[in-house]
């Protein structure tokens, strides 16, 4: 379906999220927020300017990792629910990259992670319009932290200014740190062992539902999981080729994940 070439890389960092294990606790969301210096939505009011920044407006928050609740649309006792955490899918053929007028976002060698260059982004939001996963977030307001909280900011991640688009980058700073460590220890930064580089959400997940690693490397756990018959990708049919896989033994979860028509056979 996609009109764009899929980029292939030797190393392909990816995730497999076990939907059957996810309890929807939201720890991954919080970990992501803290790891990446994401400013919380602080209420602000300037009545004279017509500005009411409502902290409860979820459409204005920066949520690189978002947990969706889904269900099988059946009545009790057949009712079932599941949770689908959604980071940026780091698509093989991203919808967001070709549209950006200023190459502020790119899919490059870095293990196939879709990067975002904040100082270059002009904030046109075309990439947001392109991404069907709603994985991109705009900085509507100047980032502010409640008093004292700014002391807990991570020194390794830059804080994004107002007016640019941002998104999950698989905790890229952790990737840099893992490579640096490999170099120091005499290892190969381009062939990191399983577990040397994990994202904050994967590390913090209490049920171990999120597994992270190199999808191309058979020695990484994600490799086998992604090749399992229970693995699927969200909106596979659109052809964006996400590097995030979901894993579930439930048929309805699969069907819901790829927008199958009610009577359609699963491909």
């Amino acid at each position, binding site marked *: 379906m*996609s009109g764009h070439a899929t980029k292939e890389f030797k190393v392909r960092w990816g995730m497999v999220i076990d939907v059957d294990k996810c309890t929807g606790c939201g720890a991954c969301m919080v970990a992501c927020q803290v790891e990446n210096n994401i400013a919380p939505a602080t209420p602000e009011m300037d009545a004279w300017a017509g500005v009411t920044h409502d902290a409860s407006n979820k459409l204005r928050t920066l949520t690189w990792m978002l947990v969706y609740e889904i269900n099988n649309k059946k009545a009790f006792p057949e009712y079932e629910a599941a949770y689908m955490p959604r980071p940026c899918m780091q698509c093989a053929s991203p919808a967001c990259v070709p549209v950006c007028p*200023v190459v502020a976002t790119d899919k490059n060698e870095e293990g196939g992670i879709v990067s975002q260059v904040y100082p270059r982004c*002009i904030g046109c939001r075309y990439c947001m319009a392109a991404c069907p996963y709603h994985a991109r977030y705009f*900085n509507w307001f100047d980032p502010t932290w409640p008093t004292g909280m700014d002391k807990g900011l991570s020194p390794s991640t830059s804080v994004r200014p107002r007016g640019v688009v941002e998104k999950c980058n698989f905790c890229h700073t952790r990737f840099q740190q893992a490579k640096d460590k490999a170099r120091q220890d005499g290892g190969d930064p381009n062939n990191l062992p399983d577990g040397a580089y994990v994202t904050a959400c994967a590390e913090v997940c209490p049920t171990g539902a999120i597994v992270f690693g190199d999808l191309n490397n058979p020695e990484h756990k994600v490799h086998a999981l992604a090749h399992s018959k229970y693995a699927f990708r969200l909106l596979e049919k659109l052809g964006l080729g996400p590097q995030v896989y979901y894993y579930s033994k439930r048929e309805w979860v699969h069907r819901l994940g790829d927008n199958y028509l009610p009577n359609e056979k699963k491909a």
Partner: protein
Amino acid sequence: MDSKLFPEGIERCSLGKFLAWLAFISLGLAWGAYAAGIIFWKGIGVTGLDNYFGFGLWITFDLAVIALGAGAFFTGFLKYILKIDQLKNIINLTVIVGFICYSGAMLVLTLDIGQPIRAWFGYWHPNVHSMLTEVIFCITCYCLVLVIEYLPLILEQKQLNKIPFLHHLAHQMHVHMALFAGIGTFLSTFHQGSLGGMYGVLFGRPYAFREGFFIWPWTFFLFVLSAVGSGPVFTVLVCTFMEKLTGRKLVDFKVKALMGKIAGTMLTVYMFFKLLDTWAWAVDVLPRMGLTFDQMFWGTVYGKWMLWTELFICGVIPAIMLITPAIRNRPALLYLAGILDCLGIVINRYVFTVQTIALPVMPFDKWYVYVPNWAEWAPSVMIIAYGFLVMSLSYRYLPVFPQEKALNAK
């Protein structure tokens, strides 16, 4: 008092009345300027846009005025390149309308982007794959072309024209106008197309995504056609509105009917392809994405009625009206067809912008409704007021309408 500045042999209302009118326009300008100030200071968090609706009223407004402003390049093309001489009586107006539409759209765009100071990055770090890059290049270049086309008209102002240098400059610019009209046509065709292409390439957004040939999705061609199918009648409507407002005849009805005929022909071609496109989208593109036609619509704001209104009431009907001489030659019917035509194009730009992103693509996502707030309306109103201002000043002091004197001779 300022009658010495009026075009030769032309009457205008009193200065007092004119100033009162300008004061009225200024209200709209002031409201928009206030909003713009706040937006630059506080950021676009003050608007009704959000992470779901990154595009909203402004983009719709921009696309609509740019389509309606297409009268400038297309009429220029017909007048200077295809040499349809009759159009000389309305060409000045089309240039001014075009100039207002494009400069206005650019103004709104600087408000719309999150980092206005970086607007020039489009030139500095261009992404050749992005349709938006093409739009940025073509719109800014074309706006310059419009300035070049507008300038001789300003230089022909009675007092300015007495200065020999300016007189000759205006003359020389006129002599070379065919060249600018050609460049304008080229630039304009491309960005009108790229604006459509911008949506057509959104392969993750089933409402807008289209396949096509070579690097262009179908929407590229549909947007060009729809713009030339509505721009000329929009100019006619502006002209008629000015006539009603001033109580003077400005352009011969024959010229208006000719513009109607041009727009009607293009609209008919457009409707043919648009209907084909909609059909192919419904029966081929959507099912391949695992979606149905019905899933594309929801509630009232995103209902099917909008599509049918766009296609039939504001598409097929005005197309038939405009290509039928008996209908087109009756003023009231020509204007009605023109209004429907322009309305259809506005709906088209609205659904491509808003419905496209309102549609939940992930099966467990839901429809959201987008409501623009005052901070988006005010700058839009400001652009309209700005249009009125430029038009009022041009009408009063510049020789915009070559036929005016003859048409109003007592």
